[in-house]
């Protein structure tokens, strides 16, 4: 009988531990770059601005972890889009209280073909917003439709210290 209770207890406890959940939603699935993104905007002769803030934003929710559990969000590019422009991700710290993130958390992270630490969080995240910046777009190289496939990974423990 004892072993039955113990097993039930363990199953219940482990099921609670497994209730950690993590999901990402996007404000929109498509971004259009047009003459308004020239520098100066709508000006004949101009090239794209060096840095173009995208209106698309990602919203991250992480739940089911302890209040003081440190974690790190990594981002990785899973596609090889055409063009020379690079995508930079910016966590929005303005909506967070200081207790929700490590002061050494990265301010920005380029999207690269390997996991890059992007946000060092503490405890559950109800609504972490990630903004995007398109850098170094140029008329001769950037004109084809590009699909950005991103692998988001949350691992326990904070992000590794930067250089």
């Amino acid at each position: 009988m004892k072993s039955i209770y113990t097993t039930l207890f363990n199953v219940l406890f482990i099921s609670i531990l497994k209730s950690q959940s993590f999901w990402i939603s996007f404000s929109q699935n498509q971004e259009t770059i047009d003459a308004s993104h020239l520098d100066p905007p709508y000006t004949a002769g101009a090239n794209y601005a060096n840095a173009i803030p995208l209106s698309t934003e990602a919203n991250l929710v992480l739940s089911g972890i302890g209040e003081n559990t440190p974690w790190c969000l990594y981002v990785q590019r899973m596609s090889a889009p055409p063009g020379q422009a690079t995508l930079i991700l910016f966590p929005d710290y303005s909506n967070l209280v200081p207790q929700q993130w490590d002061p050494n958390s990265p301010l920005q992270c380029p999207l690269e073909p390997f996991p890059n630490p992007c946000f060092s969080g503490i405890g559950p995240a109800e609504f972490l917003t990630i903004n995007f910046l398109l850098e170094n777009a140029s008329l001769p190289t950037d004109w084809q439709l590009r699909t950005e496939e991103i692998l988001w990974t949350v691992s326990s423990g904070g992000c590794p210290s930067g250089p």
Partner: protein
Amino acid sequence: MKFLVPLLLPLTLLGQRFHLEESTSFTIEYAPISLVRIGNNQLSVDCNNPLESGLGLLENPISITPQELFITKSKHSTKSLLISRNSQSLFNLVAEAQPGISNTGSFTPSGPINLNEISQILLTPSDGLSTGHLPGQGIPISLILHRGTNYGAYKASTQWLNIQYEFL
């Protein structure tokens, strides 16, 4: 003791490391861009006095100060830049895009064009052309005034000529 081991097992899981993954995708679309702008709307002509009496004022072609053209053309299509003029002009004009180095991309001039109401190819951009938008960065368009049919047009005054540039 036997009972304690399985009971304490969940406590060891409190320090469990977790690893969660999520994949997303979104697209970035570059809309086609075709922009053209004239840098200087007013051009001038210096017309020397005839060397001998009896010679016409416009025996030889006269150069007009170049017009500067600024272009941004994305790489989506290879449409050419066409030029035409309105039918009301009192004089003949020949236009030619001068080769030069652009900020990005390149273009191929088509050579001298005798302007009329029919659109003709002035240049063909390629590779995503942006000339630069500051004065002096545009493509110089040389304009040559040929002998006209109405000498009344060649007095010291401002003449209006509607030149149209368009991508087609």
